[in-house]
C-alpha cells in the first residue's frame, strides 16, 4: 500500500484507540500512539501473514514486547481480519481477552506471545527465530520494544545471544519515544548512545523516523536483506503522536481522555484528504 493509504489506516486506528481508551478507561495511550505507525507499516507492508491461517508454520512472527501497547495491536489485528472488529466492544470487560496486555496466544488469533512484563518479548522472538533456523523455515521474527524497555537486562542478554548465533531472521524495532513511565528516558536513566550500544553488540542498526512510512518500509527491507547478523530499527517517534495536546506529554502514559478531550482529539484525527 502507498504511504497515503497507510496514513489513512493509521488515522482510523488512532481514532479507535482513543475511543477505546475513553470507553474502557484503558491507559498507555501515549505509548500506543507512538507505535501505531510502526505497526501499520509492519502489518500492511512487511509481515508475511494470512489472517485466515493464523497458525501457519511459515508465517512471520511479530511479538509486541512493549506489551502495554496492546490496545494498538488489538486494533491492528482486527483491521487485518484476525477477528471481527465487533469483538473489541468487550474491551476491558471482565472475562474478555481484551485488556491492557496481550493474552496468551491460544486465546486470541494473531497474538504470538503473552507479554506485559518488559524485556520478555524480544528474547521470546529470538527463541522463535532460532526455531525457524532449526526447522529450515524462512519466516522472519520481529519484536517491538520501547526505549525504556532497553533498561531491562534481558534485552542485552538476548542481544548478545542473537549476535553470537548470527541470527539474521530477527529484527528488533525500538519505539524510541523518549519517555518512560515516570519521566524522560534520559532523565530516568540515560541510555544514549543507543545506536552505538546495539552496534557494539554486533547488530545491524538502522535509524529512522518512526512516523515516515517510506523510511520505515526501506528500513525493514534493508534488515531483511542483511545476512549474518540480527537487525535493529531504532525508530524515533513522538509519544501521543497525532493529537496536539497529547504529543510529548507523558501525562498520557496513564491518563485516559474524558468526553471533551476525546471529542477534541477525534476532530484532529479527521481524514481531510
Amino acid at each position, binding site marked *: 500500500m502507498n504511504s497515503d493509504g497507510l496514513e489513512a489506516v493509521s488515522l482510523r486506528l488512532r481514532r479507535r484507540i482513543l475511543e477505546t481508551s475513553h470507553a474502557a478507561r484503558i491507559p498507555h495511550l501515549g505509548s500506543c500512539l507512538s507505535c501505531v505507525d510502526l505497526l501499520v507499516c509492519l502489518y500492511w507492508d512487511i509481515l508475511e501473514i494470512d489472517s485466515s491461517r493464523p497458525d501457519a*508454520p511459515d508465517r512471520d512472527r511479530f511479538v509486541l514486547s512493549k506489551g502495554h501497547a496492546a490496545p494498538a495491536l488489538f486494533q491492528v489485528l482486527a483491521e487485518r481480519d484476525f477477528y471481527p472488529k465487533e469483538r473489541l466492544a468487550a474491551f476491558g470487560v471482565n472475562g474478555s481477552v481484551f485488556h491492557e496486555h496481550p493474552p496468551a496466544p491460544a486465546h486470541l488469533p494473531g497474538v504470538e*506471545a503473552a507479554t*506485559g512484563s518488559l524485556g520478555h518479548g524480544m528474547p521470546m522472538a529470538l527463541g522463535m527465530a532460532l526455531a525457524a533456523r532449526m526447522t529450515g523455515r524462512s519466516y522472519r521474527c520481529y519484536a517491538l520494544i520501547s526505549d525504556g524497555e532497553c533498561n531491562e537486562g534481558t534485552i542485552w542478554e*538476548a542481544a548478545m545471544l542473537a549476535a553470537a548465533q548470527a541470527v539474521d531472521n530477527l529484527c528488533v524495532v525500538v519505539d524510541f519515544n523518549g519517555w518512560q513511565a515516570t519521566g524522560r528516558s534520559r532523565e530516568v536513566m540515560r541510555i544514549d548512545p543507543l545506536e552505538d550500544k546495539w552496534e557494539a553488540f554486533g547488530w545491524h542498526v538502522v535509524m529512522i523516523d518512526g512516523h515516515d512510512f517510506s523510511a520505515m518500509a526501506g528500513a525493514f527491507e534493508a534488515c531483511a536483506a542483511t545476512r549474518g547478523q540480527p537487525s535493529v530499527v531504532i525508530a524515533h517517534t513522538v509519544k501521543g503522536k497525532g493529537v496536539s495536546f497529547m504529543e510529548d506529554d507523558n501525562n498520557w502514559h496513564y491518563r485516559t481522555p474524558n468526553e471533551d478531550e476525546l471529542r477534541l482529539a477525534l476532530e484532529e484525527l479527521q481524514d481531510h484528504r
Partner: protein
Amino acid sequence: MTALVASRDGYGEGLMQLADDERVVVLEADLGKSTKSCRFREMYPERTFSLGISEQNMMLVAAGLASSGYKPFASTFAIFTERGFEQVRNGIARPNHAVHLCGSHGGLHTGTDGSSAQSIEDLAIYRTLPNMTVMHPCDDISTERLTVLLSALSGPSYMRTARNKRPRIHDDESVAALRIGKGHVLREGIDVALLACGVLVGEAMTAAEELSRDGIEVTVVDMHTIKPLDSALVQRLAADCGALVTAEDHSIIGGLGGAVAELLAANCPVPLERVGVNDTFGESGDGDELLEKYGLNSDYIIAAARRAIARKA
C-alpha cells in the same frame, strides 16, 4: 554393595533417551558439564544452545522455542534458575509452555560450594506457580526415567537434581513403575510413614531399618513429585499410620513438608513432623557433615518419627 550415584547423571542420560524426538532441544547457561546436559550437546550440537551465563534470557528463549513447537530442556544450578523466576512465571508458566527446567546442585548437600549455591527454597517457589510440575528424584535411574516421562507433559516443569553421590535407591523394576505425580512406596509399615525426596530418601530408608530393629514398622515413600502432590497416597497413609514425617534437603517452609502440612490441615489432620532446613541459610562444608549439622540425616528422621508416634491420639 549398593552403587553410589548422583541424580544429576540421570538427567544427562534421560536427555539421551529423548534424543530421537527431534523436537527435544537443550539449553545451557555455561553449566552443562555440571548439570550433565553436556552429554546431549556432544551428540546433538545442532539442537543444543549455549546461552552464556544469562539465565533470565534462557527462560524466555526457551519459551519462544516452545511456542514454535519445540520441547526445550533448560538446565543450570537450582539457585541460578531462581534468577529467572519472573521469566519462568510470566514467560513459561502463565502461557503454560512445556519448558522443562532442571536445577542441579540443590540443597545443603551441595556442600563446599557454600551457602550462596545451596538452594533451599527452589521447590517452594516453583510450587507456587500455577501449571508447574515440581519434582526432586532421589537417584540416577529414577531421575533418568522421570526426565523421559517429562517429555509427555503438556505444561512446564521444574526438577531438582543433586550433585553428590549417594547409594542408589531404585532398581529396574521400581523405576518402570514410576509415574509423575505418584509417590513410590519403597517400604511398608503401620506405625508411621516417612515421606522423603532427593538425598533424604536414602536417609529415610536407613531410619526405617533402625526403627524396625526397635519394633517400629515404618512406611517409606519416595515423593519424587512435590507438585502435583499425591494427595490420595498421603491421605491413605495418614489414615493407615496415623502419623507422618516429611524429610527434604530444603527449607521446612513451602517444600514437601509444607505441601503435606497444607493437605493434612485441610483434609485429615494427623501428627506431622517436618525434617528440613529450619529457616536458616547453610554454609560451606562437606555434604554429609552439613546434613548432620543442620538436622537432616537419619538420626533426626528417627527422632522425628518417635515424636510423631508419641503425638498420636
